[in-house]
């Protein structure tokens, strides 16, 4: 498919687009949040971009300054006065262009700033809303915009050598694990991050094996294979809806009761917490992250796990799953069951630092140098635990750490929690478990 160029808009059109985006996002809640900010600057102290660079421009609430300007001039109590006396300047095209770096390159939407604000403002959500305006202004980063456009049209963020459906079946064969495809009537509908199909086939195999072990009636759907949602990253709300609709329609078609989100952070947020709102009504099925699902299976006793041979390990809680998503106990319950010697990070659980790759930043080329500076914060923290292995349950985190490992020739590589579970299934009907990663 041809590349869709990011529309070259005139400055006026850019501003109009941004204002349209902001207007769509202004509501009682976002207005209340922007009204409550007292400019205390504490949110910077939570943001790994500010911590790594000490550069004031990365203060989270500063990233939504254009949104505040738009709101104050358009819909606030004193809007007429703001406009008349120019207390708040109109948003300009140059300003928007300058803010692209702040809203995309230097923000993973990880939500850590929302935990520290003394006024309780959910800064991360304001940033997500501001991205929508940037998208409408044609200022979404090219890499994200193209993938979002491509995924909205074809279902895949970028073209692939072979259709993902065939690659998936090939993985099944290679790892000798059943990969149910397009079954008509199942309990669970599966999907995978296209990152796993291309980079981590073992994770796909692990998912299939676990499902086989649990004897779940489940299936992949060739028209709804990809878990990622580049509309969410680029801020294109309509595209995000269309991309989610693919999965929703397929789940409805195969009468699934559960739509299982694989080890992918933003996919969970996009499906679990935002798809229904974009869809306009409640989803007729449950949306579970695979980690969450395995946690439930473990608790229910259906999933039995043996002790893993892993040495000491530390766990990176994916921001979208843990801090923003609420998948809290499952990962540690699974690791405990596998007798993993867990060494917690200094900032762990809901307060853990972001790996720096989320929110689409991993795909933005110009964000690379800054990303490497921020991921150092995380790497130092991981080394400080003295654990031999780093585990996580999100493929974007995994890719970020791999990329950092290559860049810094770091002595560790990220290990997927799902794969570890797949390798330690107790009494699996196949004693020779699949090829270890």
């Amino acid at each position, binding site marked *: 498919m041809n590349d869709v160029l990011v529309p070259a808009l005139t400055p006026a*059109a850019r501003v*109009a687009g941004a*204002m*349209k985006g*902001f*207007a*769509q996002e*202004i509501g009682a809640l976002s207005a209340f949040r922007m009204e409550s900010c007292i400019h205390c600057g504490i949110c910077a102290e939570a943001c790994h971009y500010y911590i790594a660079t000490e550069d004031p421009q990365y203060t989270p609430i500063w990233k939504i300054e254009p949104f505040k300007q738009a709101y104050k001039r*358009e*819909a*606030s*109590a*004193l*809007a*007429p006065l703001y406009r008349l006396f120019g207390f708040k300047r109109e948003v300009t095209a140059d300003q928007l262009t300058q803010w692209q770096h702040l809203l995309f390159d230097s923000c993973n939407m990880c939500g850590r700033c929302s935990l520290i604000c003394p006024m309780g403002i959910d800064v991360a959500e304001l940033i997500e809303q501001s991205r929508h305006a940037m998208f409408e202004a044609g200022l979404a980063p090219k890499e994200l915009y193209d993938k979002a456009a491509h995924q909205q049209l074809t279902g895949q963020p970028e073209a692939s050598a072979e259709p993902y459906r065939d690659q998936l079946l090939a993985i099944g064969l290679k790892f000798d694990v059943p990969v149910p495809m397009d079954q008509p009537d199942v309990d669970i509908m599966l999907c995978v991050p296209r990152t796993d199909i291309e980079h981590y086939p073992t994770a796909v195999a692990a998912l299939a094996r676990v499902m086989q072990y649990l004897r779940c009636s489940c299936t992949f759907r060739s028209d709804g294979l990809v878990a990622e949602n580049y509309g969410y990253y680029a801020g294109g709300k*309509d595209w995000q809806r269309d991309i989610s609709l693919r999965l929703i329609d397929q789940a409805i078609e195969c009468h699934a009761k559960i739509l299982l989100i694989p080890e992918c952070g933003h996919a969970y947020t996009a499906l679990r917490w935002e798809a229904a709102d974009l869809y306009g009504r409640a989803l007729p099925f449950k949306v579970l992250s695979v980690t969450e699902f395995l946690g439930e299976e473990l608790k229910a006793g259906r999933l039995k796990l043996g002790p893993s041979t892993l040495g000491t390990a530390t766990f990176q809680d994916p921001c979208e799953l843990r801090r923003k998503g609420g998948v809290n106990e499952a990962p540690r319950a699974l690791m405990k069951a596998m007798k993993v010697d867990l060494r917690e990070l200094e900032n762990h659980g809901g307060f853990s630092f972001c790996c720096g790759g989320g929110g689409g930043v991993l795909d933005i080329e110009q964000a690379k140098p800054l990303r490497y500076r921020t991921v150092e914060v995380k790497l130092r923290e991981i080394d400080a635990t003295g654990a031999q292995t780093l585990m996580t349950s999100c493929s974007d985190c995994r890719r970020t750490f791999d990329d950092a490992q290559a860049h810094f020739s770091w002595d560790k590589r990220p290990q997927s929690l799902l794969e570890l579970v797949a390798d330690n299934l107790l009494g699996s009907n196949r004693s020779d478990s699949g090829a270890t990663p």
Partner: protein
Amino acid sequence: MPHDSDLNVGEMLRRHGVGRRAFIKFCTATVSALALPPWMGPAMADQLREARRPSVIYLSFQECTGCFESFTRSFAPTIENLIFNVVSLDYDDTLMAASGDAAESALAQAMQQNFGKYVLIVDGSIPTGAGGACCTAGGRSAVDSLREAAKGAAVIICVGTCSAFGGIPFANPNPTEAWPVSAIIGDKPLINVSGCPPVPEVITGTLLQYVTTGRLPDLDEQRRPKAFFGNTIHDRCYRRPFYDEGKFAKSFDDEGARNGWCLYELGCKGPTTYNACATLKWNGGTSFPIESGHGCISCSEPGFWDKGSLYAPLATAEWGKAGDNSPVRTLELGAAAAAAGGVIGVGSAGLGRWRQHRREHPIGNPPEDE
């Protein structure tokens, strides 16, 4: 009782058998009472003895004679006889034996004889209502008498809040359209000795200070001598430690009041009142209002009668008409204002939504085919 006015003070004192040492003692005591520097005592004594005995004219207008009572009650120094020897009181319709035409001619003669040199003491406010008819003496209104007397006065000493600031006659609704002296005579040096009545020693002290130094004492913006009106009652109140410790009487007979605690919560206006009550005290240093258990009512301040209840604490809002600032009134005000604000708020929200709508569906450029 015309005195031989060309005798100086010293000769006059000797005529009355008052020795030099007694006079030095009197001056030392006066200086101490006036809180003036002690070395002024002997200096005052020598200076006074050579001074010409100034002529004093005491005119009473719309007043209750409370100030004159206070004037003659002055205890320290033993003033009553000495003041009449030091100063030749040429006219005082309360004290003088003469009356009717004799009194008026005495007044005219005194004014004519000492034209430009006599001290004019005025007591009481000057009513201008009904052409000054509200206060007349011998067919002449107070306003005319004052204007005429003021022409030849070297200085005018307004004794009492009535002459100084209008006092109670001046209070709302002021039926007689009473005015303070300063509102009628503008071109003469004037000293206000306010108080209702003023402390006796303050009147005599101010008079003596002028007589001995021949100049106006240091005056504050209200033209009151700073020697007596320089500090607030609150700053000189012996109960101040209780104010600082937060010990307040809550009612006039509760444990706090009996222990002599601060009367701030019972409406004491000490903090905004400048006078010497707390130091000189009344009745020869016996006591003063606060010491007797009642809050200061700020009688030496302008408009003290119109500042609302004497028992509403100084800090209450409005400090105005009693009951006007009751919580109910505050609630009504707040609710009405909030309602108005609400209406504007609804308008703002409506306007905000409308502008949002216009921004979401911009007219003009065709909607992109999304």
